[in-house]
Each structure stands twice: as C-alpha cells, then as structure tokens.
C-alpha cells in the first residue's frame, strides 16, 4: 500500500469494470483507479493484485455521486455546483453536457435597471428588466446567477460562417406579396442575397434584380406596389420588382456619402454626413433638400411607416428631436429629449391597435424614451423612460398582423417591446449576441425573425410565453453575501475561496466588485488570513466633508480554533473610486464576529454574536 502524493478527501466512487474505478474528491478532482492484476500468481497461492495506479483525469464540479452510464460516459451529480455528463479516456476527460444548478443559494438581491429614470419610479409594475441576482454554489463551484423572466427565441435554422454582418433586410421577390422570401445581408464592404424556397431551402443568388452587391447596403426594402429600393453609401436606386430593371437611380454628388436613410411607401429620406437631408419620392425625384450647419448635425433619421407624411430627425446638439413635413422638410415641431444624451435611433410604430402610435427614441447612453403622438396635431405627450443597456440600442419593427407591431431592441440586453392589456411591456429576450435583426415572415418560417450574431445568421421564432432565463458568471469562490448599489451600477460580494496548497486546505475571504450590466469582475479586496466574511452592506455615509457618499461595509469574523465563542471581528468600510476600484476608507476591530449589518439614522449598526453595537 503506497500513499498518494497529496492528501485529499474522497467523496464518491463508481465502478467502471472489474479493474477500473473512478474516484472523486472534495476539491472536484476526478481520479482513475486502475488495479494491476496478475493471474499467474494465483496458482502460486499469492494474491492476484500486484499494485494499483491512481491518475488524475481532470476537474469536475464537486461530486455528490458518480454514475457510470456506458461507453466511457459518467454522470457527475453535484449538490453544490452544476451536474455534468463527462466522457473519460485513458488519461483525461471532457465535459459533454452540463445541467445548470442554481442551488445552494446563499444570498440574493434584486436589481431593476428599468425603473431608474430621472422622474423616479413611474411604473408600479416591474419594467421587465428586473432581475434577481443570486450567490450560488460553494467554493470552486461558486457563481453569480442572474435570473430574468423573458421571452425565448427558438432557432429554427442557422446559416453558419457569416461573420461581421452589419445589417439585414427582408425582401419579397414577387410584387405585391407580403411574404418575405429573400434576405439581403449587408457586410462592411459587400452585400449578399439569399433566397428561401417555400420548404426552407436556402440558395445564395449571385445576381439579384440589379442589386448592387459590391458595396454595403444601408437600406433595402420593397417600396410602393412593385418597387424595390436599395440605398448604399453612394447610390440610391429603385428597381422594378417584376422585371428586375433599374428604373430610377441617384448618385451622391461631390464625393459625399450617405450616412443614414429611412423610407416608407411614399418618401425616402437620406442624410448626407448628418449635414444635409434630402427627401425623395418613390421615383427618386428630389422633393426637398435642407442643410443643417455643423452646429446642428443630425444623429438619426426616421420616416413614419406606412405612408405617413412626417419624418423624424434627431440632433447631436441639445438632444433634440424634430418632426418634419416630408414634402417640404419644414420643421413642424421640436422637442428636447434628455439632458445629457443624444438620440441615435427613432421609430414610430403602432403597438396598440386602436390607440395613437408611439415614438420610441433610443439614446446613446442606453436609455429608451417613448412619446405618444397625435398624428393630426403632431402633439407629443410624454411616455416612459427605461434603461436597457450602456450603449445605444437600435430598433426593429416586427409585424404581428392586424396592423399591430412589436419592437425588438438590439443592445447588450436585447428586449422585446409589446403591448399587453393596454400597457407597454418591456421583456428581456434570450438573444444575448444579436447584432442585427429583421422580421422574416416567410412561407417556410411564418412569423420568424432573422438574427445576425457576430459569427452567424439565424432564423428564429419568438416564443409567446415568457420563461425564466438564468445567466451564470463563474466566480470560483463561494459568494456568501451580495449587496447592490444602483448609484455605482455595481454590486459587491463577500466571497470565500478555498484552495489546497501543498496538501493543506487554505480558506481566504475577499470582497469583490462586479459591474451590473456586463456582469464582469472589476476589483477584489483581500481580507486577512483566517478572517471570514460574514455580512456585506451598501449604504450612504458621511465622507468627512458632510456629503453623503456611497460606501460598502463588510463585517467579518476571525476563525479561531478554540471553543471560545467570543471570537474577534472587524468592520471594513470601502469606497469605489472613479475608475471603479475598491479602496478601504476605514477599519475597525470588534470584540465579536460581525454577523449582520444595518443602517440606523446615519449610523452603522453591527450585530455581533452576543451584542449589538452602534458605530458612529
């Protein structure tokens, strides 16, 4: 019998065959035990076993049970982490399938990004962007899990290997048909056309009705009864959809470029570098042209869909949005959207069947603001404001039939805006990597949506039901306590790390800071040796000059071997600097372990093992 190189604690075993067993230890390591057998020895009366080998195969979640399935596949059941199915080979293993596990939940907090607007909480309902963030799992299996209720996207087809798609447009190749059967995919320097048959077969077309393929496309859509519009950075052309002949064309003079374009069934609005806009009719006749000086460049343009006479433009300066008459480009009305952010995307759409259409404005800082518009008087009345991300979202209109539309918002946390029971609902969508979206209601895929991710193009169907979506962030330490700061847009976690150093188990506590939207770790503050994090709190404290500042307070206890219940403890107050790093402000020793923290009248209250102390 020979000892192992490193001491460990075994927790589970399973037989593979008469000579091989797998063993799992407390630290997630998986071993293969191979027994060496010599059958000749039996005749001589000696034991058959000559020796044994123990090899480490790899690391899994900390196993509670191991079950051998067949063909080298083993189910690793874990209570404190994700369960897995793994495949083992002679010297190694790989994870074949993972079953997410949110338990054991040690602490949780609620984050609602949407209900934070300048005016305070307008909605009594959740904005749909609320999430529960849990500290789950233990030690190496520890993680933060963000739980959201959202709308699921089901992939029905994938066109792989299409990278860096900049835009998607759905087209119908037969005139006056509402069904889309062609997808124009725009890349940085080219455009490609894919045609879908009625049974879902896809074919790339090299020459489609005179469409320019050698440049990227800013806009492609069916226009008027039988026209096909394509606008690139230099040219706009209207093609007869039936014959494929280019009927009207217009090129940008003086080597300028088209920077933005929007069109409906009667008007085409083009922006040249944000300084000049031109309104065309469907025959590409110029209706009006208007220049804005460098002081008031345009940040976005939009025409109202389905033939309205009005268009919308946004400005870089002063965060204004103007309503323009498309026939003359005269300004009808101008409103200021926000104090400090620029409108970058606009859409006017009909969410509710018998009500006024709604204007959605996406701001560069990730907010979406809505207005109700009276189409005759052009009066705007204020609606809602909601934060969806940190970067400018963009809108895509998805027809739902019956003249009603949903809006898909593409940003870091994509959302679907729809009307339900008279209210505007913002629902999270499980399409984390969507860069570009367009409606693709086709014969083969009714009601579907085409979605471009950084690496491929998918056709998906949006589920009507809202389901629960859990997104994990592996921390690899036990997340014992969580505190959330909406002001800092981050949350603090008290974590416990367990590592095996030269056969000795070492426990270390940290306080970590993580960003609320990207869910990424920003900074770590290490606590002392043998110090265990017990409680974490976010509060506002006097920063020494009389101003209240946001602080994180950590309560700890020192682990001690003796049976004395009165172990020592500490309170550490941390601030978050401008570049989002943790800095200790003050530390205080306590006579007992600090189990719980709270605020009372501007003072910190600490609950120790036997006493309650108020700290000034």
């Amino acid at each position, binding site marked *: *019998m020979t000892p192992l190189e490193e001491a460990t604690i075994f927790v589970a075993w399973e037989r593979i065959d*008469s000579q091989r067993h797998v063993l799992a230890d407390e630290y997630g390591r998986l071993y293969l035990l191979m027994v060496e057998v010599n059958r000749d020895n039996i005749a001589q009366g000696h034991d058959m076993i000559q020796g044994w080998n123990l090899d480490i195969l790899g690391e899994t979640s900390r196993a509670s049970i191991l079950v051998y399935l067949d063909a080298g596949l083993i189910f690793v059941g874990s209570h404190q982490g994700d369960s897995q199915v793994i495949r083992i080979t002679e010297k190694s293993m790989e994870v074949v399938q993972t079953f997410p596990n949110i338990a054991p939940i040690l602490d949780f907090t609620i984050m609602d990004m949407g209900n934070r607007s300048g005016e305070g909480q307008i909605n009594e309902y959740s904005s749909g962007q609320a999430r529960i963030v849990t500290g789950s799992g233990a030690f190496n299996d520890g993680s933060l899990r963000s739980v959201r209720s959202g709308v699921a996207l089901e992939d029905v087809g994938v066109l792989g290997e299409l990278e860096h798609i900049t835009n998607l447009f759905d087209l119908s190749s037969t005139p006056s048909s509402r069904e889309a059967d062609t997808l124009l995919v725009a890349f940085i320097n080219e455009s490609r056309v894919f045609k879908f048959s009625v049974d879902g077969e896809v074919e790339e077309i090299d020459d489609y009705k005179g469409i320019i393929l050698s440049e990227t496309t800013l806009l492609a859509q069916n226009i008027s009864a039988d026209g096909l519009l394509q606008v690139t950075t230099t040219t706009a052309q209207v093609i007869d959809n039936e014959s494929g002949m280019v009927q009207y064309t217009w090129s940008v003079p003086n080597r300028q470029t088209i920077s933005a374009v929007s069109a409906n069934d009667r008007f085409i609005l083009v922006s040249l570098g944000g300084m000049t806009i031109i309104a065309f009719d469907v025959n590409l006749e110029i209706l009006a042209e208007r220049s804005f000086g460098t002081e008031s460049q345009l940040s976005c343009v939009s025409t109202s869909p389905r033939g309205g006479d009005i268009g919308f433009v946004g400005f870089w300066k002063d965060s204004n949005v103007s309503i323009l008459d498309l026939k003359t480009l005269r300004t009808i009305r101008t409103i200021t959207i926000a104090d400090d952010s620029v409108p970058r995307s606009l859409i006017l759409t009909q969410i509710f069947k018998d009500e006024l259409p709604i204007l959605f404005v996406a701001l560069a800082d990730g907010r979406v603001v809505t207005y109700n518009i009276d189409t005759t008087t052009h009066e705007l009345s204020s609606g809602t404001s909601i934060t969806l991300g940190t970067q400018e979202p963009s809108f895509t209109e998805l027809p739902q039939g019956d003249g009603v539309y949903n809006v898909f918002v593409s940003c870091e946390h994509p959302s679907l805006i729809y009307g339900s029971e008279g209210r505007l609902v913002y629902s999270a969508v499980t399409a984390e990597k969507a860069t570009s979206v367009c409606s693709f209601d086709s014969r083969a895929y009714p009601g579907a949506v085409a979605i471009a991710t950084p690496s491929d193009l998918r056709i998906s169907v949006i589920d009507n039901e809202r389901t629960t979506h859990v997104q994990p962030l592996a921390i690899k330490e036990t997340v014992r306590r969580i505190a959330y700061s909406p002001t800092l847009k981050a949350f603090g976690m008290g974590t416990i790390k367990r590592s095996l150093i030269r056969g000795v188990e070492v426990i270390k506590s940290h306080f970590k800071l993580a960003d609320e939207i990207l869910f990424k770790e920003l900074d770590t503050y290490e606590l002392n040796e043998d110090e265990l994090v017990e409680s974490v709190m976010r509060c506002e404290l006097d920063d020494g000059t009389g101003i209240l500042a946001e602080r994180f307070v950590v309560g700890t206890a020192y682990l001690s071997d003796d049976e004395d219940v009165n172990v020592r403890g500490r309170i550490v107050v941390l601030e978050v600097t401008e570049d989002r790093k943790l800095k200790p402000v003050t530390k205080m020793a306590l006579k007992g372990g600090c189990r719980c923290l709270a605020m009372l009248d501007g003072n910190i209250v600490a609950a120790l093992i036997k006493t309650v102390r108020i700290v000034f």
Partner: protein
Amino acid sequence: MTLELFEGIVTVIPIIQRHKKRKIDGDFGNLGEPIPVRIDEFFVRSSAFLHGDLQLREDPKLALLYEDTQSNVRLKIRSLMYSPAASSSESGNVSLEEVKDDTRQMPDELELGASHLIPLEFPIGKRH
C-alpha cells in the same frame, strides 16, 4: 437482500423470492419484513458486500470499515446467513458471524482518514 446500517444494528431487508413451499405468490419481488441484527461495531464509516465466487454458493460477505472504541480504524468481514421464515407470518432469521481469516493478510489498523470501501472482483481487496 438489502441492508441498512444504524449504530450497532444491521437491518436486513429480504427481497421475497420464489419458494417451493410458499403458496402465496403475490408478494414476489416485494420487500419483506426488516430483520435487525446486532453487531459490535458502532461507528461504521463504510460498508460493502464483497464479490463472491458464484459457483461456490457461499453466504454473502459484508466488509465493514469501522472505528473501534479506541478510535482506531479497522476492517472486519462478516458472513451473512439468512433463513426464511417457516410460515408467512414470521420473519426470517439472520446471523452475522465474524469471519476469521488466516489466508488473507489484513492489516490490523488502517489510516484515520479511511472513508470508503470499494469491493473489487476476483481477488478480494479493499480500498480507502
């Protein structure tokens, strides 16, 4: 047969088999009445049935990894002898006799950290 271990007691639960004398077949495959048996080992850390030679039709052997009263970790093998009840209203008899083994060299004491027993086939071996 299945068994359960509580401190100092091994509970044997027989699975009802077909018996020539038994007239009632309805209970076939179900669990019978549990039969408790006392053993000397109180703190059993792990137990395992050993793989036996099927042709020899020996009584099954149960290996027990236990802690004795001086906190030493030891290994003991016991033989399980079961006789079913004469009539259907009584439970059967079980005895767990210690097997004195001279042919196999078993160490007197094992490591204090021994936690699991893994039975291996053909040869008789135990691992921790």
